């Protein structure tokens, strides 16, 4: 067996590892093992690449890898669990950037005159999609990290401008395809970066996770394209796996929000809704506020309490205190569980990760479908930093922008307690009728502070 065959065989093993890993990541039992399998496959693939004959610049490769490890490991280790989504965004972005660089470097290294048209096409695809993913992920990171506003950024004529840039990119790509001009390819690269930024700007709030999932799929496809360019089956398989699974995952996420993907990407959700929400003129109506002491008593003498965590709990880093409260209640014999909306937090499943970090046991986490039948028998629904995911308008107001989105039926509990920072509406920007309901009380303030006061109040009750 020649060395080349051996290396290819190892790549095949790595590719199988990636498939097994993705399969494993789909089940709670095998998820962690799946990740380890993928890491081993990756290590194998990288290791045997060093054995490639005629590989030069080995020391430079090693230096580059050391730089990458030195930056990535502390960044990934030290980041808080709440900041995970933006870490995924940024690591995804650099992958897209790398794919674009691989494509363009391979193009520079070959003679354009003898390059087949389909080869140029592969390069174009890799550069274009890789750059959009890189720039888009960078903006998504900035939004989640709150370097810039997380709300949609819109301006007059936005869709026209985006359309023009999109057409310019397409026209330029066709020109490069015909002329194989290196200079134009650089212009295309720059324009693709611009396209990535302006494509992401109008997407904000709760839609950003869906966007990251889509960009993740983009990077996968860009990697597959560079695999075509390099004649590497490994890159084609791994990139395509991620591209295909990423698109499915993106669809699952947008379905959980009751909206179509094009609607998320092109409708600038926030701005549309502020326009429709304001028409109600409901802002002036009174709400009932309460004190932590009163709510503490209500909770302590309840039989069943459902905690509905949302984005606000994640922002306030209140998952540990929430668990303290749940434990304090459980000690008094109150039945407590958490009702998790599929899009609670910043990514689907994000809330589960956060609560898991706070050592909340699995059996206390209930998915929406499991939790809803129990809501009518619950004495108190404690809504911590959630809003849109419990808004009854999704069920009974056909004109509402979130109409059709499945919600947690907090309104069916005997009492509803909202922990909110202010009366500001949620991401969707629409009023929540439940806030004005007779059985609802509000506790204003930072979720973590309020929960701490509740823990004390329950202990004193």
């Amino acid at each position, binding site marked *: 067996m020649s060395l080349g065959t051996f290396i290819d065989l190892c790549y095949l093993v790595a590719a199988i590892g990636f498939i097994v890993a993705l399969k494993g990541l*789909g*089940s*709670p039992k095998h*998820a*962690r093992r799946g*990740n380890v399998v*993928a890491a081993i496959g990756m290590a194998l*693939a*990288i290791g045997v*690449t060093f054995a490639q004959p*005629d590989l030069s*610049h080995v020391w*430079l490769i090693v*230096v*580059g*890898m050391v730089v*990458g*490890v030195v930056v*990535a*490991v502390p960044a990934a*280790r030290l980041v808080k669990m709440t900041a995970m989504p933006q870490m*995924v965004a940024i*690591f*995804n972005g*650099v992958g897209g*950037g*790398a*794919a674009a*660089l*691989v494509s363009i*470097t391979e193009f*520079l*290294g070959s003679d354009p005159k003898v390059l087949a048209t389909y080869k140029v096409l592969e390069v174009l695809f890799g550069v274009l999609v890789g750059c959009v993913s890189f720039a888009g992920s960078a903006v998504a990171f900035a939004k989640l990290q709150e370097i810039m506003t997380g709300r949609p950024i819109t301006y007059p004529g936005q869709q026209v401008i985006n359309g023009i840039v999109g057409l310019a990119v397409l026209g330029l790509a066709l020109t490069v395809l015909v002329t194989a001009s290196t200079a134009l390819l650089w212009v295309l690269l720059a324009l693709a970066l611009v396209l990535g930024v302006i494509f992401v700007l109008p997407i904000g709030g709760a839609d950003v996770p869906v966007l990251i999932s889509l960009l993740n799929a983009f*990077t*996968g496809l860009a*990697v597959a394209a560079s*695999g*075509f360019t*390099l004649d590497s*089956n490994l*890159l*084609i*398989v791994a990139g395509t*796996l991620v591209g*295909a*699974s990423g698109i*499915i*995952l993106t669809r699952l996420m947008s379905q959980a929000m009751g909206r179509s993907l094009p609607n998320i990407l092109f409708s600038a959700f926030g701005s549309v809704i502020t326009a429709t929400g304001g028409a109600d003129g409901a802002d002036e109506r009174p709400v009932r506020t309460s004190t932590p002491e009163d709510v503490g008593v209500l909770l302590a003498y309840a039989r069943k309490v459902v905690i509905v965590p949302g984005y606000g709990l994640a922002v306030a880093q209140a998952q540990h205190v929430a668990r303290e409260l749940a434990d304090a209640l459980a*000690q008094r014999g109150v039945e407590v569980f958490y009702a*998790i909306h*599929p899009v609670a937090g910043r*990514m689907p*499943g994000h809330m589960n*990760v956060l609560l*898991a970090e706070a*050592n*909340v046991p*699995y059996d206390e986490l209930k*998915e929406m479908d499991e939790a809803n039948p129990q809501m009518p028998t619950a004495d108190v629904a404690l809504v911590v930093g959630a809003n849109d995911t419990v808004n009854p308008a999704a069920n009974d107001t056909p004109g509402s922008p979130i109409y059709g989105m499945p919600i947690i039926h907090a309104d069916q509990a005997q009492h509803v307690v909202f922990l909110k920072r202010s009366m500001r509406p949620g991401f969707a920007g629409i009023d929540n009728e439940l806030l004005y309901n007779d059985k609802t009380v509000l506790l204003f303030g930072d979720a973590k502070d309020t929960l701490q006061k509740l823990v004390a109040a329950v*202990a004193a009750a």
Partner: protein
Amino acid sequence: MTNSILEYLTVFVLAAFVGIEVVSKVPSILHTPLMSGSNAIHGVVLVGSMLVLGHAHTGAEEVLGFLAVVLATLNVVGGFVVTDRMLEMFKAKPRGRDESSAPSGSTERPGEPSA
């Protein structure tokens, strides 16, 4: 030439079907780890980056290839570490519960409410 592109296209199409099949039954709790895990997997572009840098002839190719290696390494390493941290949370949970609930449930209960 035409044959080889067809072979690669075949691989591409089959891989796309496998990708769709493999994730179609994932519970929503695992969506975030799955996204993160697949994010790490496309870090395999590091292999491509190594090949590109390893076959670079000009200074420009060396610079671009080097950059690609750095970025791809960030993707691979960061991706796997982040995913592992997420999944660690899922696994550590039942154990952490036992440790914490046992003492507070039995021994400390009488003293605690008064404090």
